Structures are given as C-alpha cells and as structure tokens.
C-alpha cells in the first residue's frame, strides 16, 4: 500500500503538558499520515497515554497545537471520523449488563446524532463490523462472558462500526495471551492495508509489534525517535 505522506490526518506542533508542575510532555512534534500504521511507545510515565488523551480531546491543551484533519482540535466537530479503543481493563465494568451487539451498535451512536434511534442500516453496519472481527456468532452473548481476546475484538468492531478513517488503540493487548496478541496485530495490519484505515497504537511492547507497523514513535516526554523499524514488513 502507498502511504500518502503529503496528507496528514493529525498534526501535532510544539505540544507541552504538565500535571500540576511536573512536566509530562515537552515540545512534541508529530504528524500522522493517511494510511499510516504507527505505534507510539515509551516507558511507563513517558507521557504516551497523556499524548493520546490530548489528541482525543480528553485532556485540555495547555501549550502547542493539535490539528485533526486540518482543523484545530478546539473547533473539530467531525468526531465520527475518529475511533478509539480504550485500555480494556480500566474502562470496562464486567458486571455491566450489555450484549455484544449492544456494544458494537454504540459505535454508530456518534453518527446517528441526538434524538434519533438506530435504524436498520445502523444495525447492519454493526453486524458487518462484528463479522469483520469474526465475532458474529457471539452477537447475543453478554460481553462479560467472553475471553479477553474476544472482548478486545468486540471493541475493535465497535470502533469499525463508525466507519472511521483513523483508529487509536490504547495498550490494546493488556491481559491477552501471546498467541492472541500475534493474531490481533496481524488483524490490525490487515485492516490497515485492506480498508486503508490509519492505525495508531499506544503500547509499551514494541518488540512484538515491530514486524507489523510502519512507524515507531518513541516517547520520553518528547519524541526521541520516529522511524520505520529496520525490519521490513510485507506489502510495504
């Protein structure tokens, strides 16, 4: 696949952030291109989760600028172009009474808009997304009854259901066994190539991902390294 380097989806310029007075990010500059498959990595406390939260508008920008699809974040309204898969363990109540299909349909809510109910075509979209992650047969199951790897696929399906152009994943394989991780990264690579979906991963386990991704950005308060891994990967 050809990555159009001229076309940036995300442009981050001189971004700094601190909690109270402790600096977390210092002068971060990073562009994410259409069709990119980027992993943002770094030690614990390197600021990678903070960077993600800033990009997604979950934290207020203190200094610097973030542009999404060419629009400054504060003015950005078109959130359905962006999907987010949160860190599963911290964001998911295992007693929450919800089925797999109810979770995936949530991915459509942003596009449906206020005061409207999901239509048949929203349900079809959700079912398609679920089939894409090969979880169609679990539609009626409680999400809490699935294994960690299966739950992660459901959250991916929810992200895909919104027809996003870019998907952000925060430590997506926490608590998932090694074999499922391998499959999961292969699956993301396939999504990236087949659907031309831009994928941004935040992860500390860069070694295992390196074979799949196009770019690695290593963070330690600032971007200390941003390069394509030496090992070439298929199709690129």
């Amino acid at each position: 696949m050809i990555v159009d380097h001229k076309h940036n989806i995300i442009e981050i310029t001189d971004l700094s952030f601190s909690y109270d007075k402790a600096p977390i990010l210092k002068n971060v500059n990073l562009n994410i291109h259409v069709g990119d498959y980027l992993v943002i990595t770094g030690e614990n406390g390197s600021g990678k989760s903070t960077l993600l939260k800033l990009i997604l508008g979950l934290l207020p920008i203190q200094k610097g600028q973030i542009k999404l699809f060419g629009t400054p974040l504060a003015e950005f309204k078109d959130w359905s172009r962006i999907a987010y898969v949160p860190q599963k363990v911290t964001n998911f109540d295992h007693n929450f009474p919800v089925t797999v299909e109810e979770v995936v349909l949530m991915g459509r809510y942003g596009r449906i808009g206020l005061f409207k109910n999901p239509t048949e075509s929203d349900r079809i979209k959700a079912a398609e997304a679920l089939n894409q992650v090969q979880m169609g047969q679990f539609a009626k199951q409680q999400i809490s009854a699935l294994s960690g790897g299966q739950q992660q696929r459901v959250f991916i399906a929810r992200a895909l259901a919104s027809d996003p152009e870019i998907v952000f994943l925060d430590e997506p394989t926490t608590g998932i066994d090694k074999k499922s991780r391998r499959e999961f990264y292969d699956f993301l690579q396939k999504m990236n190539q087949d659907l031309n979906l831009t994928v941004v991963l935040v992860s500390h386990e860069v070694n295992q991902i390196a074979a799949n991704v196009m770019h690695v950005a290593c963070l330690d308060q600032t971007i200390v390294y941003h390069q394509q891994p030496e090992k070439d990967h298929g199709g690129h």
Partner: protein
Amino acid sequence: MPEIFTYGFMSRALIAGSIVAIIAPLIGIFLVLRRYSLIADTFSHISLASIAAALFFGWNPVLTTLILGAGASLGIEKLNRVRKIYSEAVLAIFLSGALAIASIFIGFGKGGNITNWLFGSILTVSMSDIWTMLIIGVIVVAVVKLFYKELLFISFDENSAQVSGLPVKFINRLLILLIALVISLAIPIVGILLISALITLPVITALQFRVSFIKTIVIAEIVSVFSVLSGIITSFYLDSSTGGTIVLIMIAIFLVSLPIKNLTKKRI
C-alpha cells in the same frame, strides 16, 4: 370488589405507587452502574432539609424538594468538575450540610409529621400529588427514552463516548437532575430513609440475570412494580409500614434471584 379498593386513599396509593415503581428503575439502572448510589442518599437528605424548610415556612413540600433538589444537583455536578475535591467528599459535604439544616428546622418544632417523610406516607397522597407525580413521571420517561443511547454509551464507556462526539457533560448533568427529580417523587412512597433501596434494589436484582441492557431494564421494572403494589396491599392487610413492607419484599426477591447468577455462570 375487594374491600381494599373501596377506600379512596388505597386507590390513590396504588396509582402513586405504580408511577414511582415504573420510574425508579429507569434512573436506578444508571445510578447503580455508574456507582452513583451515594448520590441517591445525598439527594434524599437534601430532600429532608427541603421538606423541613417547607413545613417551617408553609410551602408545598413536593415543589420545594423539586426546586432545591435540582439546584443542589447542579451544585454537586459543578463541584465534581473542580477536580481538586474528591467526588465522595463533595457528596459528604452536601449530605451532612442538608442533615444539619434539616435538624435545625425540625428543632424549631414545626416539622409536625416528620416521621411521615422519614418512612413514607403513601396513604396520605392527595389527588394533586398524583397529578404532580404523573407529570414529572412522564417527563422522566420521555427524557430517558430520548437520550437512551447516550445514557447507555456514557455509562458503559465515558471516554469512548466523548471521543465519538457525544455531549457527555450535558448528559451527566441531565442524569443528576433526573435523579433529583425521581427522589423527590419517591419520598411519599417509602420515605427518605428507604428511597435508595427502592431505586437500586430492583436493578441489582435484575443484574443477576445477566441479560442485555434493555432486558435488564424490563426485569427491573417487573420487580419494581410487583414489589410496590404487593407491598402496598400487604401493608394494608397487615397494618404494617408501607415503605418498610415494599423494601422487605424487594430484598426477598433479591435473595431469591441470587442463585440465578450461579446458574448462568455455570452455563457459560
């Protein structure tokens, strides 16, 4: 016609009970799943202060509770957003502050039948109370229906909901306002001390069934309406406290539902 229906106050009690029984789980499910149970307790104490003040000044207790509850809900939400204060601490301030105000008004000695407000007085519900409940009840049902998908997504995964562009701040404010409304409505039925039980018990029972979100609401509704109506009728024949009877029936149903969780677990 059974004896019970020949009394006007019993018919009114059953109508009022049904309205509250239908509304309580609709709010209760979001309250339980978002771990907002302390908010319900806080509002019930704010309601106690409102009622004590209303009795002292000679205002309408239901309307006073509604207005002060709504005001306090916005205050709590605002203080919660100031992240320097823990949300539990914010609630504790409101809870104890409200109790302090209530105790002062009650101390002035005009709180006459304050026990009615503490433990409920469904048998003294008037026709105009029923109209107020009906109007507020319809509003609550309509708002939950209108914002059902936003309430569901935000309760399940607030960050992702925000990234999808849902108006998280607005919905959170709306939910707290609805909690205040429902509590002020439910006070005549079970009283201030048992309100959080009325709102949360049917939902906790329904959660044992491990079904979809919408089915959980339906089960909670059935448990709620059954408990409230059978509680009112039982208390009529046993001459027991209505609020207490309703809550004990709810607890009994909850205990019966407990083995269900183990059954569903085994199946999976």
